[in-house]
């Protein structure tokens, strides 16, 4: 069984959540959220992601969920053309929400926002790739109606 408690509802009035394009000033918080999950602080990597995916670049998306200046989560993805012979489709290759802010529908909003961007570019399919044992994120994508794609990821050791 998957277990994760719903965080206690925050007291007082909570600023509205806004999903918008990531900016340089958000990077510290994005690095912190990612480090909380992966255990690695990758400031340079995220700087590079912002450079390549930020600023409303054609076909590329780096969005954050902003609640009164606090970044609660992010999503990164792009539209890929004819990869391995498949028609252009949206790819989500990173999504995360702060542990304290989870189960409040934030990832759902982030995914919806990036999918809206994909739709605007005329694609009608969104894909992602995950570690088989990442039950949490797999359950999230499944809950959003995603099913197995007609692909099989393969690998081998290069010796």
């Amino acid at each position, binding site marked *: *069984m*998957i277990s994760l408690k719903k965080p206690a509802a925050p007291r007082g009035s909570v600023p509205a959540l806004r999903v918008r394009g990531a900016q340089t000033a958000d990077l510290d918080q994005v690095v912190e959220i990612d480090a909380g999950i992966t255990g690695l602080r990758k400031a340079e990597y995220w700087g590079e992601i912002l450079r390549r995916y930020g600023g409303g670049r054609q076909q590329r998306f780096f969005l954050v969920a902003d609640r009164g200046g606090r970044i609660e989560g992010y999503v990164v993805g792009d539209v890929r053309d004819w990869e391995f012979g498949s028609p252009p489709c949206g790819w989500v290759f990173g999504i995360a929400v702060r542990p304290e802010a989870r189960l409040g529908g934030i990832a759902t909003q982030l995914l919806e926002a990036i999918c809206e961007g994909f739709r605007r570019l005329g694609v009608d399919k969104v894909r992602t790739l995950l570690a088989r044992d990442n*039950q949490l994120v797999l359950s999230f994508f499944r*809950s959003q*109606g995603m099913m197995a794609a007609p692909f099989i990821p393969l690998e081998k050791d290069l010796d």
Partner: protein
Amino acid sequence: MKLQKNTHLALCSVLEFAAHPGEQLSAAEIAAKYRMSPHHLAKVLRALGRAGLVRAARGAGGGYRFAGNARRVTLMDVIGLFEDISAPKGAPRRAGRRARPEAGAAAYEVEEAVGVVLSEIDEIAKATFRSITLDTMLKLIERRRR
């Protein structure tokens, strides 16, 4: 992959309960709706009860109520009660059909390699069952209905 009959009965009934949280449903009702043998279903419901997924309702009429959390209970939690899918990675599978030593090293090698491929498939199946909650399953049924 093929699921056993009891697993099917369990999935149908657990999803029926999950779709009607708080409602008391009798075994007879479920058996009639899904055209199952009430006898088999009774056994399955007892197993679901022992696993804490349904609770026997007290009082007139009997029946059961859903006792799990549909957004957290996964297909694996249900299927795992009826199927032996917990074989550890790399463990010899399908012992009954393994090449016997007298069959020779060649057959054994092939069997081993086939085992590697089959366990790849098993791992994917398990990951899939673990990632789909009852709630997600109900949504899937609803989408397919439309």
